[in-house]
């Protein structure tokens, strides 16, 4: 039996991680302006090899990870995907594919199902081709996604549709839910854009108005009630319009590990934007070392790092002070309270952004290698 070191060096309260986000590549045929990948996309030449990924999956399972989400970029760019799914399955990991559906179809899906894939999450930009393809920055993408969804269902795999919503598709939310149902999805995840990286650059094109948001929320709530037991609807509201932040990743280093294409390990997508943290790599350290002992994962773990007003707040173990990357992006300091919180002294920056949303939308800046 491989043994996992007990967490003696760190605080004794560190639980094993639940999920691994395996970003196999940053390459993607789409160019969504809200893409959660970093502005500095990693190139194919720096990507981990298949054997490295297999070791990462083994170590993850030994560490207590239960689920692996194969993501990217577009993970289907990587030819080894089926072997990686098989590796994950051989260690009892639940594997989920997060894809744009723009590459491959029946043959690939059948191979993945055979290898032990449990579930597919397919992104959808809108309910009709013209606007969907405009948002994705790729003509024909919508058509391919429709075929892909059919292939997933034909292989008997459960399907979730991921819909990132914003000012330029939010009004079609009812039709998007209908489409999900007709595609045989069991669940839709409707998430408002989170403003980091590409999305932050595109904020003036993406942030919805309050009226749009309220109408969409009403439609989602009605649909959720109507489709109970048929289609599960998860809905993540934009935190800019809230008064308290969301619990980002359920807290820094509490449940998630994200391995980037080059092997760098971060607690969330955008963490690498935080200066002064040396993020470890699976090329140099074991996942167990990284999880329990690295400075990067311990930096904002728990509540010890918290500033006022979080330090004495009764929500500090509910939202963990919000998102570190958002604090950085909007206040210049990752160790501040997330300014989305109305108690944050910097909350004014959010109000300023919301006035932008009332103006005409800016043109998209598409996600590309620069």
């Amino acid at each position, binding site marked *: 039996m491989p043994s996992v070191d007990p967490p003696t060096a760190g605080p004794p309260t560190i639980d*094993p991680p639940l999920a691994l986000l395996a970003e196999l590549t940053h390459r993607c045929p789409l160019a969504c302006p809200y893409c959660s990948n970093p502005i500095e996309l990693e190139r194919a030449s720096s990507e981990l090899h298949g054997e490295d990924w297999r070791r990462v999956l083994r170590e993850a399972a030994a560490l*207590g990870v*239960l689920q692996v989400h194969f993501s990217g970029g577009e993970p289907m760019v990587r030819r080894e995907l089926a072997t990686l799914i098989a590796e994950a399955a051989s260690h009892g990991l*639940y594997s*989920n594919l997060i894809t744009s559906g723009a590459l491959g179809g029946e043959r690939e899906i059948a191979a993945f199902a055979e290898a032990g894939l449990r579930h597919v999450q397919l992104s959808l930009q809108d309910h009709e081709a013209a606007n969907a393809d405009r948002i994705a920055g790729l003509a024909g993408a919508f058509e391919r996604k429709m075929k892909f969804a059919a292939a997933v269902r034909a292989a008997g795999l459960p399907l*979730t549709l991921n819909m990132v919503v914003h000012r330029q598709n939010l009004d079609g939310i009812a039709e998007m839910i209908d489409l999900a149902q007709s595609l045989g999805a069991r*669940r839709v*995840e409707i998430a408002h854009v989170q403003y980091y990286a590409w999305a932050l650059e595109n904020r003036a094109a993406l942030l919805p108005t309050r009226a749009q948001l309220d109408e969409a929320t009403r439609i989602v709530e009605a649909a959720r009630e109507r489709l109970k037991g048929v289609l*599960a609807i*998860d809905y993540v509201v934009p935190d800019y319009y809230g008064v308290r932040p969301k619990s980002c990743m359920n807290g820094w280093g509490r449940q998630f590990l994200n391995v980037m294409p080059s092997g760098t390990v971060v607690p969330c997508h955008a963490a690498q934007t935080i200066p002064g943290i040396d993020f470890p790599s699976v090329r140099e350290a074991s996942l167990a070392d990284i999880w329990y002992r690295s400075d990067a994962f311990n930096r904002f773990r728990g509540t010890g790092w918290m500033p006022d007003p979080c330090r004495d707040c009764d929500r500090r173990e509910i939202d963990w002070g919000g998102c570190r990357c958002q604090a950085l992006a909007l206040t210049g300091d990752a160790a501040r309270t997330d300014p989305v919180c109305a108690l944050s002294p910097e909350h004014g920056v959010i109000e300023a952004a919301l006035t932008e949303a009332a103006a005409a939308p800016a043109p998209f800046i598409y996600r590309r290698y620069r």
Partner: protein
Amino acid sequence: MVDSASVLRLAPHIVFRFDETRRRWIMMAPERLMLPDEQAVEILKLVDGKASVAAIVDALAARFNAPRQEIAGDVTEMLQDLADKGCLAHAER
């Protein structure tokens, strides 16, 4: 609707298994982890796509030597809740 004649199975996206690291039974959907308590574990172990809810209740009542009616209420309520969440499906009959 879940009633005593219902025959249920786990939905295809659900995994219910024992986790060695945490030394407990877990139930997973891709988007979340659920931690069934001891009673729920005993019920879920009997959800196999063959046994009816009534048969599950009988088995539990016999095993725990408890009033059948009470168990029936708890079991149906829990299974209904999981079915509403999409975690359970009705088996073909």
